[in-house]
């Protein structure tokens, strides 16, 4: 259980401003997973840091009953010159683990799946490998409450699926407090919701209501709950640079979607459970639809780019 009493928080220093969080009173019961929603800069991550004890409130207090994790997948504490194994050992020692140290290391190693690189300095890791190690490390400990700041957004698609699965297993006997903009993820993982607006936190017993309240204030109507729902700006309003960036991001999105399609197909082939089969079919359809949408948009933009480069280059040629 986490109790937040009369909590105030502001940032100090030359760039500090007014209250980020103002007089927040909340009780998060045991075993209830909570999703935190709100605008960018509303104070979601600040609240999470305060709950995790990484930052101290200016007024009020946070009472933690039970073991609370550090934000899942945070790789900040790794020392570059030390190997993955040494870093894992360090964190385990800080948490007072002695007897089952080797078992824990083995678990992290198995989960992260980075092979021999586990004994190389963390400096040499790619960002994906770092994320895998950090995620594996967070999940190797048995916490009562996990806190997560956009956690499942690390690693490649296959790893994400694995992470999400591991996460859901955890949610059975532990709870989760997560900040995310992915409404699909929130609905999937959480029961209750906290909506943060203008320094105030509002508690909702159902995550759907919290998301609804969030949409009400931002006046954005989105019935498709989706991680990356960007609005389509008319092509004519884009300048060359943003056009290029847009093309690049679309390309990436298409690649991702393609990869996801492959994974879904593979899972379809291997699964035997009928329920899962149905949901996978649905997912496949959905992925295909999105892929086609992305491809259409890509083609339009590309055409436009060719036209615009032609028109901008001709006066220079004269």
């Amino acid at each position, binding site marked *: 259980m986490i109790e937040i009493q009369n909590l105030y928080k502001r940032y100090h220093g030359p760039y500090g401003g007014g209250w980020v969080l103002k007089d927040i009173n909340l009780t998060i019961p045991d075993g209830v997973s909570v999703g935190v929603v709100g605008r960018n800069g509303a104070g979601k991550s600040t609240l999470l840091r305060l709950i995790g004890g990484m930052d101290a409130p200016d007024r009020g207090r946070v009472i933690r009953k039970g073991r609370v994790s550090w934000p899942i997948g945070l790789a900040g*504490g790794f020392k570059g010159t030390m190997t993955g194994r040494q870093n894992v050992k360090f964190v385990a020692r800080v948490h007072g683990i002695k007897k089952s140290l080797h078992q824990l290391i083995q*678990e992290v190693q198995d989960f992260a799946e980075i092979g021999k690189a586990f004994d190389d300095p963390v400096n040499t890791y790619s960002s994906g490998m770092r994320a895998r190690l950090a995620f594996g490390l967070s999940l190797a400990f048995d916490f009562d409450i996990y806190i997560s700041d956009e956690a499942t957004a690390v690693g490649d698609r296959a790893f994400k699926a694995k992470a999400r699965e591991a996460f859901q297993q955890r949610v059975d006997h532990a709870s989760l407090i997560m900040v995310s903009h992915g409404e699909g993820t929130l609905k999937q993982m959480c029961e209750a919701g906290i909506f943060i607006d203008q320094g105030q936190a509002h508690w909702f017993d159902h995550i759907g209501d919290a998301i609804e309240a969030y949409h009400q204030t931002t006046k954005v109507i989105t019935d498709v709950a989706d991680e990356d729902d960007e609005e389509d700006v008319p092509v004519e309003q884009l300048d060359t640079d943003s056009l290029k960036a847009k093309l690049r991001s679309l390309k990436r999105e298409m690649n991702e979607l393609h990869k996801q399609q492959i994974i879904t197909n593979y899972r379809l082939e291997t699964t035997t459970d009928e329920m899962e089969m149905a949901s996978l079919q649905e997912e496949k359809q959905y992925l295909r639809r999105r892929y086609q949408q992305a491809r259409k948009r890509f083609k339009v933009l590309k055409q436009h780019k060719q036209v615009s480069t032609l028109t901008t280059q001709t006066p220079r040629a004269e």
Partner: protein
Amino acid sequence: MATNTEQIPDSTRHPLRVTWDVWAAMYLREMIARTMADRMAWFWMVFEPIATIAVMIFFRAYIRGGRSITGAEFIPWMIVGLMGFYLFREAMTRPMGAVEANRGLFTYRQILPVDPVLIRCFVEGMIRSFIFLLFILIGSLLKINLIPDHAFGVMMDWTSLWMLGVGLGVLLSVASGLVPEVGRVVKIITMPLLLISGVIFPVTYVPAQYQQYLLWNPIVHGLESMRLSFFDNYHSIPGIDMTYLWFWALSTLTLGLVMHVRFASRLKAR
């Protein structure tokens, strides 16, 4: 994923137990970082003081001339002074970067900004003591008279100098964490400190009427006291008083720790 992991004894751990676990883990981490940072780190750790001392001795012996120290041989006198001074200097300057260097660790709420600072002070003292013992051993093998006449007194003075460095280091680690310019100023000041602390020039060379000002500097007390314990016949200036040094060490240490308590969240937050 297997879920048969050990229960983290977090909620049942006593606060002192948590601190101890953190210190033990950080000590190992810091030691690895110091000795294994690059392939020759451990070599330079030993060779660097040898090289600097050799250069200093060369300067003093062949450029400035005049190697007569009353009651002590020149080379041992120099080594004792430099080792003592480096112990103080490293214990003071190393902790200053500790908070910044370990910022990432504050994601684990068990770790406070004071932990890396204290651990660095401790590690520095251990490493310096090890190097000093190595010097004494090698010096003795080379027939340089580096065996202290009053070993216990030397140990006390060595500890005192270390504590002086730790006190200032803890204080400056907070100060430089809050005001980054402090770090730069301290780095500028440490160079003249080498000259006014009687490390390379004996304090007895200073005219009698100015010696009282020299005694304001607590390092002089530490170094001269250590030399007095080291060499039975050594003569120093009057007024060497270890109480004065300890007054400095304990007051700065207390102030530093109090400031660490007061500004813990601000040091973390930056």
